[in-house]
Every structure is written in C-alpha cells, then in structure tokens.
C-alpha cells in the first residue's frame, strides 16, 4: 500500500517523475521510472559529473557486491557500467564461504562518468537537464503536496512525483584543519534552497560526517618499494547480462599496498588537536567502519602500522587515490605525514583530504517505497537517507524510481522482503531504525544471508523484476535456461552412485571436495563443459542445502506476520495493554506489517499478539460499513 492516494492528472505536468541529483541513486531512479514507462527528468548541477565517484574509484566489496548483483538482476545500470569501466576485478572472501563472497572492482573514474552519461542519454523517456534546483513546488490546502521543482533561472518543472537524491549536498560543509567552506564536494556548492524547503515540511533531520583521503600524482610515487596487488586471473563481471567474451572491457592494472610508519603516527599524534573533529567543529557522526587515519591511530594506539592502498583513478590519468588515510588535518600536516609512508616520500598532492558534514532526513519518516509518509509526491534515495556508498545509493534509487512510477500508475508498490534481497534488508533497516552513523551494508545485517548470495541474485530477483515490469521477457528466459541446466545436472549427480549408498551429489557435499576435484575423481562425460556458473550453483547447493532449508523454514514461520499489513488508520494510543515504549516507537515509526512491528525497538512478542488482534478488528471494521469510526482504535 502506498502512503498516499494516486495523484490526480496535472495537465501542466512536463514529466511523470523528476529526479534531483545525477549521482548513483539518481541514475538508477530515473532509469527505473523510465523503464516502467514514465517520462522522467534527471536534473543535475553539472552535466559533466553524472555518475561521479565522489570518493573511492571502486564498485562492490563485502556486502556491497551483493547489492550490485541485485541491482543488476532488477534491470539496473550500476553493474553494467562497472563492467564496462572496471580496471581491476576481484572476487573477495573466496575462502570463507559462498554467502559472504563478493565481487569488487577498481573503476576508471572518468570512463565511469562517460558510460553513465551515455546510458542515461540513450535511455528512452529520460531527459537530462542541467540546472540547480532551488525550491520544491508545493501545493495543497491541508497537507503540502509536491508538484515539481523550481530551478535557479526561474524555470519550473512540474511532475506528480519528485525524487531527491541530493547526496551530501544538504547544508553541506567541508572541513580541513581550521578551514571551513560551504559545499558537498570540492568545487561544488551546497543546496541551501532545498534544505530550507525540507525544513518547511517539518521533517526530522540528522547530521552526519564523512571524509575522503588526499589524491596524489602517480609520477611522484615510487611503486618499486610497494607490494603489488593484481586482480583475479579470471575476472568475473558484475552483470549477469555482460557478454563474457568481451570482458573485461578495459585493460587491467595493478594496485599497490604500503604501510604507515611510526613516524607517520608521531606526526599525526603531534597534530591531532588541529583536526576539526578534535577541535569540536564537527557535530556530524562519522562512519566507524571507515575511520579517518587520525581516528585509527588515536583509538588503536597499540597498532604500529596501518595498511595504505594505492589505487589508480583511471587508465588515462595520473591521479592516485590513497585508500586508508582519509583525513581532515590541515594541508601541511597531510603533506608531512604522507611523506613518511614508504613509496610516498616525494608525493605531489593533487587534492588534499577533507571531511564533509551534511544533513540527512531521518528515514523512519519514509515508507518501504521510499516515499515520505507525510508529504505526498516526494521520494528520497541515497545519502539523503543517511546511507553511505555508491551501491547503497543505487539500490535505493532503483527502489524509489520504481515506486514513484508504480504510485503514479496506481499499481502496488515494489517492496522486497528481508528474505528476498539485501535491498530489502537495507530498506527495512532504514525505515524501522534511523541510522546513528552513515549506514553501510554488511552481510551480518542479513539474517538470511545464506539465501541472499551474489551468485543467485538473478535467480532470486529476475522473476520478481519481470513481474514488476523492470526487466523484459529475455531476462526471464535466461534465468529459466539456467534453472533447466541446473536441474538437469543435478539429476545426473543424483543418479550416478559412487558406492551403494552414496551418489555424486552426496560426495560433493563434503567440504574438501570441489567441483573440479569431483570430476577428476569420478569422470562424468555428461558433465564436461558444464557452464561454470551452473557448476558453482551445484556445489553451493550440495554444501549448503541443509542450512539453506533451515533458513527457508524460518522464513516460512514468519511469513504470516510479514504478510499481515497494519492499516495506517491504526491508532496505537487506543490499544490498551501495549507497553509504553512500544506504543511510542510504533506511533513514530508506523511499521507497515506485523513482522516489521516486531522488529521495532522495544516491541516484544506479546505486544505483537495484541497488535494482531487490533489489526484484524480494524480491518473488519474498515471492510464493513463505510464510516465506522466510533471505535477508539480508529482515528477520526
């Protein structure tokens, strides 16, 4: 259920959906809305920076690679752009189990922007517009409804749905040492007008902080003393649609690894009082999983060195991203400590590190379609919801774009469950518990992670995406073919016995037996040349079957509550016996289902039982005679 009724037709509307901000969230949002048939506008400050990688030039990683594969299965662009522009591909966590394996790549920052721009321009129904959005067009007597946006030059763009993907640009402030400037990225302004509009909507805001390391000139570095890090010898693409024959598309390059030294630590300790953090000039909360180098050194004083990853920003540039030394210390201190790191002694700075503080909208004010519950027509995606990362942003963009279109078209929202996708876990986490630090995906957040693997993202999600209209029949056919091959091979494994009581499949269950090992030991003509992805899926099926089934059982046990929606008319203060904390939190968060209610902080199983009864009572009242409103449980 959408939070607001389907919008009336506006004869003055230029578009169905307007997306503000052309970052990773904005791109997926506009493409998804257009895939569903909406005329969609993508408005950006600067046409040169569509798909900008504001921080590290990489896509995927632990917990994030799974998101990219899911975005791809839902017809999104991120995986395909990464495949076209990746300059080093690696599968991480290969030795730790199928559920935590994740793809990652280094990207050519420049090519990534170009490919993103090309895809957006090529997409049917998408218009790319350059301009600064200074205000929302708000109409409506009682509650404000969004009808479009106003640009700095006075142009009005009207549409029933607006998606804000403004990243770190709300009341953005950059810090380096004692310097402060307004802006969300070097050389770009902060979006003050929009921030003011969001304030007039009465939304609850929070403040976060993030940081970025210095960029160095490759020609000034001594790579000889660093450890070389190569990509996989047989790289795998993110996208299930990428043609493996034409992959990797770009030449592959190495990264390098070096370490901080005691001298580095000494300089930082001597100067830490100059950091805006230490001086109390930053109020936003930074991510603990991506601390600044000064934070790492002060908090973990016993560690005598930290890794520094030296990553190229592209094939045709000398810019080097120094991953691991994010900092907001003054420029001269940055130079001094970087020069104590082996290989970086002569480093020339192209850009100094800095921290950026920005406002975000507390996401408990959103519903699972990423629409604001209290303002009709406004959707939010990406860092504006308190998340961090290109992958998290893109996934939300896809959800918001899809749902903006679904809402306009009067169709049910597209909501993924926690057992269906990492995307479902993320949206559920965001709307039920507002983040305390920039929210990043971790596999440990997904209680059903054995089901939510990167290898099966397309099998999990393509059927759902097809039903929602996000992918075409050819995608569904591709997955069907895969399933058929899988079933056929499984049949062969189960029919071939290696001993009276054990078949090939049973043998493959053993942890020490790999697919290759199995075929070497028990040659099987019918399985030679099997699609390696099918083989991988079979091996995982054999080794994880029991555990996967257990998780599926758990999902089924909870299905009843997950499927019971709570009517939005439910008045929690009218429920006798509900615990005080539960009542307060539920009224604030307004969960969509009984299952979600059980995940709200302070809500206990008996509270859920009580809610179940009230939900059923209200449902019967609502489906009965119109205008039954005398009960205490129904709001006037």
């Amino acid at each position, binding site marked *: 259920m959408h939070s607001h009724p389907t919008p009336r037709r506006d004869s003055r509307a230029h578009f169905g959906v307007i997306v503000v901000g052309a970052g990773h969230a904005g791109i997926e949002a506009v493409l998804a809305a257009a895939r569903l048939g909406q005329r969609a506008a993508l408005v950006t400050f600067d046409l040169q920076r569509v798909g900008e990688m504001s921080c*590290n030039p990489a896509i995927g990683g*632990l*917990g994030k690679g799974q998101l990219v594969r899911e975005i791809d299965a839902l017809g999104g662009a991120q995986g395909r752009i990464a495949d076209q522009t990746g300059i080093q591909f690696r*599968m*991480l*966590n290969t*030795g*730790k*189990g*199928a*559920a*935590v394996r994740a793809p990652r790549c280094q990207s050519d920052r420049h090519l990534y922007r170009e490919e993103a721009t090309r895809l957006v321009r090529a997409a049917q129904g998408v218009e790319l517009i350059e301009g600064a959005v200074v205000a929302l067009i708000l109409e409506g007597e009682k509650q404000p409804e969004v009808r479009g946006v106003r640009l700095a030059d006075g142009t009005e763009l009207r549409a029933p749905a607006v998606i804000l993907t403004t990243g770190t640009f709300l009341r953005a402030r950059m810090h380096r040492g004692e310097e402060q400037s307004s802006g969300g990225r070097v050389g770009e302004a902060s979006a003050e007008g929009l921030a003011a509009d969001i304030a007039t909507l009465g939304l609850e805001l929070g403040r976060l902080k993030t940081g970025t390391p210095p960029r160095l000139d490759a020609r000034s570095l001594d790579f000889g003393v660093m450890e070389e890090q190569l990509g996989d010898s047989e790289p795998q693409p993110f996208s299930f649609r990428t043609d493996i024959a034409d992959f990797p598309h770009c030449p592959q390059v190495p990264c390098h690894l070096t370490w901080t030294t005691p001298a580095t630590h000494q300089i930082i300790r001597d100067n830490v009082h100059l950091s805006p953090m230490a001086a109390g000039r930053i109020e936003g909360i930074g*991510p*603990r*999983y*991506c*601390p600044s180098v000064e934070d*790492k050194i002060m*908090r*973990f004083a016993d*560690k005598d060195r*930290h*890794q520094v*990853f030296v990553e190229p920003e592209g094939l045709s540039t000398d810019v080097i991203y120094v*991953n*691991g030394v994010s900092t907001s210390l003054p420029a001269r201190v940055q130079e001094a400590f970087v020069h104590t790191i082996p290989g970086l002694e002569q480093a020339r700075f192209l850009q100094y590190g800095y921290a950026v503080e920005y406002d975000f909208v507390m996401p408990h004010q959103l519903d699972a379609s990423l629409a604001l519950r209290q303002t009709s027509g406004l959707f939010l995606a990406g860092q504006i919801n308190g998340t961090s990362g290109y992958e998290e942003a893109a996934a939300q963009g896809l959800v918001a774009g899809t749902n903006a279109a679904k809402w306009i078209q009067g169709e049910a929202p597209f909501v993924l469950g926690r057992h269906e996708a990492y995307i479902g876990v993320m949206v559920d986490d965001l709307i039920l*518990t507002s983040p305390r630090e920039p929210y990043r995906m*971790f*596999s*440990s*957040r997904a*209680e059903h*992670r*054995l089901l939510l693997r990167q290898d099966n993202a397309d099998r999990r999600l393509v059927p759902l995406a097809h039903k929602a209209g996000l992918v075409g029949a050819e995608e569904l056919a591709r997955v069907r073919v895969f399933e058929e091959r899988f079933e056929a091979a499984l049949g062969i494994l189960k029919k071939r016995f290696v001993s009276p009581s054990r078949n090939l499949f049973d043998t493959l269950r053993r*942890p*020490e037996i790999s697919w290759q090992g199995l075929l070497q030991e028990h040659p099987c003509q019918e399985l030679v040349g099997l699609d390696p992805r099918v083989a991988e899926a079979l091996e995982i099926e054999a*080794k*994880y079957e029991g*555990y996967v089934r257990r998780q599926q059982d758990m999902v089924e*046990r909870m299905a*009843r509550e997950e499927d*019971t929606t709570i009517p939005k008319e439910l008045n929690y203060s009218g429920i*006798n*016996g*509900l*615990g005080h904390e539960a009542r307060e939190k539920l009224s604030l968060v307004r969960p969509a289902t009984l299952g979600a209610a059980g995940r709200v902080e302070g809500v*206990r*199983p*008996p*509270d859920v*039982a*009580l809610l*179940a*009864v*009230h939900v*059923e*009572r209200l*449902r*019967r009242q609502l*489906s009965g005679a119109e205008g039954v409103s005398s009960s205490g449980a129904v709001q006037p």
Partner: protein
Amino acid sequence: MDPDPVLASSGSTICALCSAGGRASRGVIRVSGPLSGELLERTTCGTQGAAQEGLKPQSRGVFEGQFNDGLGTCPVLVIWMPGPGSYTREDVVEFHLPGNPHLMQAALQRLLKLGARSAEPGEFTRRAFENGALDLTRAEGVLALIESANEEQRRAASALLLGGLGRRMAGLRECLDDLRSLLEASLDFDQNDTGHVPEEELEALFQRALEKLHAATHWESARDAGPDLQRVVLAGAPNAGKSSLYNALMSCAPDPMPALVDPLAGSTRDVRRGELSLGRGRVTLIDTAGVGPLQNPGEAALSGTLDGRAQERAREEVQAADLVLWVLDGGAEVPAHLDPPGLLVWNQIDRAGVSQEPPEGLIRGARGWCAVSAQEGQGLESLRKVVSGLLGFAPPASGAGPQSSEGGSLGRQLRARHLDALRSARQALAEAHQLKAQAAPLDLVAEALRGVSREFDAIEGSSTSEDLLDRIFSRFCLGK
C-alpha cells in the same frame, strides 16, 4: 488475512503450565497443536490392565491414567479435546497432575523434548482468535489481561536473572559475542580471501563458551524454582522502622525469629524473609538493610564492605519486588522521590511532632500511602488491606473476566523455558564447533553461532545485528 480465517496451521505444537501459581493441589499443563494426540499417546498409559499402552486419543473426553515423564510415573487426569471443538480449534490436551512443582517441571520438560515448544504469552488466545474460536472483544480482553500478567512475568524473569542465571548468562554472552565478532569481523571486513582466524584463539573461545554454557544449564536445572509467592519488600533509609514493621506484621504469623531491632541505624545487616497471609493470598515479606532510594547503585557494591554487600542485596530485592513498601520515618528527612514507585508507609506517627501525612510531592510519585506506627501497632490493619488490594487479593469488583489460562506458575514456567533455550543453545554451539573442526566454510560456522545467540535472546530479550557491529568496532581497527 482471510475475512473468515481458516485454521491457522502454523505447524507447531505449543505447551504451557496453565494452573494458578502457588500452592495448588493440582497443576495443569495445556498443549495445543497437531502433535497433541501423539504427545498424549507417548507420555501416558492407562491404569487398567498390565498393557503399558498410551491413552488413545479417539473421541473427546476425560481419562484417567499414568503420566510418564521419562523418569517415573504419576497419576494423571487427561482432558482430550480434538479440534475444532476446542479452545484454540486445534487438537488440545490438558494434563492435570498433582500440584508438585518438581513434577510439573519434569512433565513440561518431557513434552518439550518430544517436540512441543513453550507457548509465547498469549499464544493460546491468539490461536483461538485466529482460528475463529474467539471473537475480537473477548480476545482483546484476554490479551490485555495477559499483557499485565506478562508484566509480572517480566518482573519474575528479571528476579531470576538477578539471582544467578543472569550472572552466568552475562559471562556466556560475553564469550559468545567474542566468538561471533571474531568471525563476523573476518567475514565483513577482512579483505584477505583466506578467512584466516587465529585457530588457537578461536578454539579457546569455543571451549570457554561450551564450559560456561554447561555450567549455566547445570545451575538452572539445580535451582529450586520455589513457591511462587509475590514478593513484598520493605525498603527505606536505615532506622526508618522497617524491622519493627516486619515484626509487627509477622507477629500473627508463625515466624520463629523476629528481626533484630536496634535504634542504632543499620542494624539489619542481611535480608530476612517470611511468609505472610494477607486476606485471600499469601506473600513473601522481605526485610532489607536500609537503602535510600537516591543512592548510586554502583557505590555500595564498589565499597565491598559487609554493609556494602548487604546494601547491594537489598537493592536486588527491591528491583525484583512485586511491591516495595517504602518505609519513611515521619520525623526524619525524607527523599525527594521514590524509585521504583511503591507503597509509601509513613511511620512513627505516634511520636510527638510528627506530621500525620507525608508531603504532597511524595504521595504523587507513589502507588498509595498509609500512616502507621509500627511500634504501637497503629494503622497495620489498613496497611494490610491496601497491600492486598495492590496485589489483587481483594475480591474482584465485577465479573472476573475471562479466565486467564496462561498465567501459570511463573517460576517453573520460566525455568522450563530457560532450560529449553539452553539445551537448544548447546546443540547449536556443538554444531558450530563441529563445523569448525571439519573445516567447513566460515559462513556456516557463523550461522550456527547465530543460532546460539537466538536461543540466548529467548532468555534475555533480543540483541540486534547493531549490537554485534558495536562489538566489532570496539575491538578491531577496521576500514581501508
């Protein structure tokens, strides 16, 4: 949900003690769900004839027989109500057993072992409602009642946790969280592909966790669940007259040893307790060392003195109380507020110059007040009445409402639930350990350990993935 719900076959069979707490001649265990018939057959045998066959659940009815809890047998009266003609519309069986706590405990354990699980509070009612056996208003009424009974249960649970299982659980959690954060940090943050976790550290943590889990299970199963009387605790500043009041209230009870009363403040060093009859009910009355409501809880414990320890125990009692009687000396200085709120007992009104009423502000923060003179025996009768009323012993004003069938004997019910969870936790931990030994992928080991955490959650309330991340971030230096 369907407008006319069909049988909500959630598949599981639930059981719980559903007789009233305290001393009853008979205890009742109720079972509901598809396994009910099978459980009946497997735990009972008829009295007539030598044939040791289980009672056959054929048609609805009442049978007599013997209940076998795996160790021995005892007489049982069985009420068999096949669905849909039962309270929940599922197959329901009730076992009426002699009201001996240990026996009930063993019977419950037996049913859990055979595949039933402990019912959540309100679950029978919820099933009844969902299966259409109960209308909305009634279901709502029962659930509201259960919710308040559940409040009581939470208090009982926290009392148990204060009592020793909690301490053991804390150590256990610590150990498990270390184990899990070590693994999860490797899975979520370490960019090395091998998944190398220091083998010795991992194995040592496993051993410690297994040991602690064993100890906790042993402690919980050896614990005397005790009679489930409500606990009324006397608290207040030293020398406010608690012991005098204790003696005065107990003077009609067969208490062999009155509390030592000394005008020198702090003469009651240890906690004393006795059973007290109050109208229709009985309570455990507990006299504590003087404890001011405003002191810092950590303070006394830190001092480590005999007094300090006595004060710490007193605070534990106050926390676990069903009702706190804050005894205040009308002639002395009084605190600004009472925490937790309780019944205010304004003592020593017989002394000259003592106001007959406590200050307005204090009354507002209390659940009621009484003026007494413990010394002279003034006001004791009205105190007894007020306490009876607050504990629900007074005869109910109107119809008692639907019978709460799920209150049960809290201590025993909780213990059965704890043991159930601890046993499952042990299984999961052993499984994780074995997976590790077989060099299974780390994500599977981590999954088995998540199962252990889930069982602990059933005892202590839930933990979240955020808690785990907190631990990881405090322990490991992460982030590229």
